[in-house]
């Protein structure tokens, strides 16, 4: 009878310890979730960059002048293999324009904080554009944006 009571006491003690450990785990979990929210804020710059370059007006006219394609339209039309009014390939214009834009916006040479970048535009399994410069590191910010109905994805990563 006495040993049974002792066993019950030990069980209660064990349960208490388990509850305390669970509470501690919950506290650490909530702290780690807060850190994830901060990372979302940090990606603002990369998000804004993608949104901004998508609106850029290129010199590739669509049918007549001055109906110029934006980068967003260039990506969609490059995926459909269309050409500009001056017979240039939309993919060539997209490649040239985006390379210049990214090089100018994310300079990697010298002692600059940005060490490298990767810009990838895909449509399903096919790659529309793949640009990279500098080195990749473990400290990076990236963003993904989807376009239209053709399952087009734009992924940009900046390495620090």
């Amino acid at each position, binding site marked *: 009878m006495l040993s049974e009571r002792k066993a019950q006491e030990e069980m209660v003690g064990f349960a208490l310890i388990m509850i305390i450990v669970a509470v501690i785990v919950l506290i650490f979990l909530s702290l780690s979730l807060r850190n994830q929210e901060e990372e979302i804020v940090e990606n603002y710059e990369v998000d804004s960059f993608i*949104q*901004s370059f998508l*609106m850029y007006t290129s010199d590739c006219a669509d049918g007549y*002048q001055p109906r110029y394609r934006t980068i967003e339209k260039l990506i969609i039309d490059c995926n459909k293999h269309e050409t500009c009014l001056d017979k240039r390939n939309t993919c060539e214009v997209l490649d040239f324009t985006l390379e210049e834009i990214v090089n*100018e916006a994310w300079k990697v040479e010298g002692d600059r904080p940005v060490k490298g970048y990767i810009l990838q535009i895909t449509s399903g399994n096919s790659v529309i554009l793949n640009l990279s410069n500098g080195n990749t590191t473990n400290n990076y910010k990236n963003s993904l944006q989807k376009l239209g109905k053709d399952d087009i994805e734009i992924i940009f990563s900046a390495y620090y």
Partner: protein
Amino acid sequence: MVIVMKNRTGQLKIQQMAFMLIAVTLFFVLVGMFFLVVKFSNLKEDATGLCEKNAQLLATKLANSPEFSCGESFGSSKVNCIDADKVMLLKENIAKYSGFWGVSNIEVRKIYPIEAEKTCELGNYPDCNIIKIRSKEDTSAYLSNFVSLCRKESYEGTVYDKCELAKIMINYEYGEKC
């Protein structure tokens, strides 16, 4: 004799419980101290980081405020889109906005296409690439965010939308907010 034995067992149990309580308290105190040390060691860095994030968010907020944003002038409503024509007029009336945004400098700098640096005035607009909306002397670093700088252009009498890549750059009034 039996009473003495019972007393001893009781004392032992009390001792056991006391040690256990001390051990548990010590454990929590140590965990608490470890947590506080980790938390407070990064306090200054956190404050600086938060300040930078806040400024970056303010830059985005400014770009999307009615005084700057494209609204629906260039098709559907867009995020991070600044109406250059609107901003040029705002620059001329900036005295009316004294202390409104709590920033000492606001600048919109065109990044692409690449051009030689030229500050915008009503006389040379749009053949320029830096719109200084508010500029006071301030040594603190600029905080910036990417935006699309759009305006109405004309080609042989036809008006069309032209958007370029730019950065909105701000710094706080004498570092008061940081």
